[in-house]
């Protein structure tokens, strides 16, 4: 029974997210993210994949300019 409840809840969550909360407009930002990622290679691109935090170009630029 517990499993059934959990499944129902998870459908509720997905319906909420996909139908009410986050609409197709978010697809627009995914495109911005993808576009930024397909720009000429930054330092991060040649770094070895998986495991470990991978910095975005933005964060790299931030770290270069930050003066906290």
């Amino acid at each position, binding site marked *: 029974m517990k499993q059934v409840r959990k499944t129902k809840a998870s459908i509720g969550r997905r319906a909420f997210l996909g139908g009410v909360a986050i609409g197709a407009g978010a697809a627009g930002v995914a495109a911005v993210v993808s576009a930024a990622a397909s720009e000429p290679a930054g330092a991060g691109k040649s770094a070895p994949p998986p495991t470990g935090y*991978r910095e975005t170009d933005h*964060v790299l630029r931030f*770290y270069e300019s930050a*003066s906290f």
Partner: protein
Amino acid sequence: MVAVAWKPQGLPEEDWFRASLYGFLGGLLGAAPDEGTVRSLRAIPGDGTPIGSALRDIASAAALPVSTIQKEYDVLFIGLTGGQVVPFASYYLSGFLFEKPLAALRSDLVRLGIEAGERSADPEDHIAFLFEVMQGLILGAFGEPADLQSQKQFFDAHIGSWADRLFADLEAAPAAVFYRPVARAGSLLLSIEMDAFAMA
């Protein structure tokens, strides 16, 4: 985001959208956008949802000259002696930078196998870093995608308890023009996530 900017196979669309929003907002909060980014911001369509309307407002605000937006970023987040907002968890939770909340975050990052980049001289509890960790957890940038429970744990421990106050401060900051709808989108994402996690 450099590493994962495509939808991983089998990832539900709503999780891809969540991840995209985290990455998108993390990017805008982590550095002043460059010209190419601002150009793509102008083309974001938005939609009828509250967050879609905030995205549309970001698109309109991106009509400002790129240099104006970049200057605004500096005044808000960097400044000569500090910005108008301090986007670090430790500051909001303890009143100071480099306090216990940062230590707690670091131990969770170790547990999750996430390492801060070598070039990061700044604390990891910056909102941009935390949003990008959420993006990575959802997409599986650090190995397998994290299950919902782990995502919720990370969110509750390091974001949910304070970031809304940062976004309120950012929206009200004297210099905020372009970053006002960014703050609104951030605040909406937080409340959507809280509601959705409660349904999981």
